[in-house]
């Protein structure tokens, strides 16, 4: 564990040096994410000017849900997004060898080696939005519920990562540009809205096969509802199962990987 932490410290250091080389880009990306947050907040503000509730949630509850979603987005953009983006290129060019030879998990090395400092600033912005959502909420939540909410938000971030890797894995066999990743990004739209709006088969899929509802909606449910522990237990169980699936698929994909070197 300590070895991984030490390694991660080096990743962060190198990423900071890299980020400082492209300063324009650094600030552009921060501004881009801030606009994304603003647009999302305005979207719900305008909706609530025309309705009293959204699938049983009040405006303040939806704002907490939204802030949780923005946290998931900002953390994954900071920690894993840049690394994951490079994986298809490395597989298709046969350049994974360098990472496979290291005495650490290849999945860890590949996905976390690029720490996005610009997005890290946005984690702070998203955290600010979360604090604002809690402070302006007319309901005061018990501390243990808030802690569970935060834990489940991190759990949701890991789920985001798991599903992205599963969507990327087909490149080992298809050698297409980005596997099913673009489709994955499209499907994340389902996670951007409260799960309560979905019904029937769609809802069933969103809480089981493609559990986008676990990302941000269920952490909010754990906060708002009485059955906090049940919801939390379900979220953790889904992530554990998906972790097993992701590792199996990744290892299976690696077996199909052919190196470019002689």
């Amino acid at each position, binding site marked *: 564990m300590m070895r991984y932490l030490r390694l991660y410290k080096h990743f962060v250091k190198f990423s900071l040096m890299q980020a400082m080389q492209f300063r*324009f*880009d650094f600030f*552009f990306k921060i501004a881009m994410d801030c*606009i994304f947050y603003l*647009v999302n907040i305005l979207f719900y503000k*305008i909706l609530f000017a025309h309705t009293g509730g959204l*699938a049983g949630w009040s405006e303040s509850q939806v704002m907490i849900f939204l802030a949780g979603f923005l946290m998931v987005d900002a953390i994954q953009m900071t920690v894993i997004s840049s690394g994951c983006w490079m994986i298809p290129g490395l597989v298709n060019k046969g350049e994974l060898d360098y990472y496979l030879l290291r005495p650490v998990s290849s999945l860890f090395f590949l996905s976390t080696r690029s720490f996005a400092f610009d997005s890290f600033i946005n984690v702070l912005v998203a955290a600010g939005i979360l604090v604002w959502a809690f402070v302006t909420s007319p309901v005061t939540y018990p501390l243990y519920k808030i802690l569970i909410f935060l834990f489940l938000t991190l759990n949701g971030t890991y789920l985001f990562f798991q599903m992205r890797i599963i969507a990327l894995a087909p490149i080992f066999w298809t050698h297409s540009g980005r596997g099913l990743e673009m489709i994955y990004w499209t499907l994340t*739209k389902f996670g951007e809205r409260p799960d309560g709006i979905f019904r029937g088969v769609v809802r069933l899929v969103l809480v089981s096969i493609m559990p986008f509802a676990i990302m941000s909606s269920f952490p909010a449910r754990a906060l708002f509802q009485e059955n906090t522990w049940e919801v939390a237990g379900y979220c953790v169980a889904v992530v554990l199962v998906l972790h097993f699936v992701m590792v199996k698929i990744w290892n299976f994909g690696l077996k199909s990987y052919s190196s470019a070197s002689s």
Partner: protein
Amino acid sequence: MSWVLEAGKLEAKRFLSYRVDFWLQFAVNVMAEITVAYFLWEAIYQGSLTTVIGGYTFHQMLMYYLFVPFVGRMVKSLEDFSLATEIREGGLNKFLIYPLSFIQYKIMQKVVYTSLAILQSFLGIFIVAYIIGIKVNFDISNFALGIVAAYASMLLYGMMLMTLEMIAFWADSVWSLGVMLRFIAMFFGGAFIPLNMFPEWSLKILMMTPFPYLFSNTIKTFIGENTFYQSLEGIGITLLWVIPMALIMLGTYRKGLRQYSGIGI
């Protein structure tokens, strides 16, 4: 101008070379956007005390959102940030040597992509409408005007995006500026929420900007919410906005060329 046709054919072939990707991404994107919109608005109408929101019944709202992904594809056209990449990596060199204009080539690419998106839409709109159970009133004049409005909006959006991409003459990586434009244009252009739902005061300000002419006006033309004259007026205003945007884009290009070393990074 015969090169435009030849290059256009080549571009169309290039876009269609990964046919499965092209259609699969299109189908998943459209279905996801419409499904999310369907459930979201169903929940909003259920939570509201009225059956009309922002001047739309639930059915009319669905009709609006049915056209959003299709019009979005037509207007945003090719958003691959290749212009910025060519400036950044020195790929612009070949255009400076070839007897064709870089700007014209980029606009031609966008026209080709928009034309393909229009063809896709004619198929897609009716299939999706059938699946979700909406009756689309096919009015040939609305659709014809809608297509003209889509090309005009594509030009307007294209000029804005190309100007931002040209910042690559000075900055290293500018794709985030393009993404920023997409968020702003889609939100203030009525692709996320119909503009009728915005507060009155903000709508007055918005109408003085080019954003409503990017998506909202085109969608309203297609679905017949605009009268014939309103549609014509909308297209006219869109084209009027294209002029200053094109001038800004050309000015940026000329200034950038003076800065361009041709080496690439």
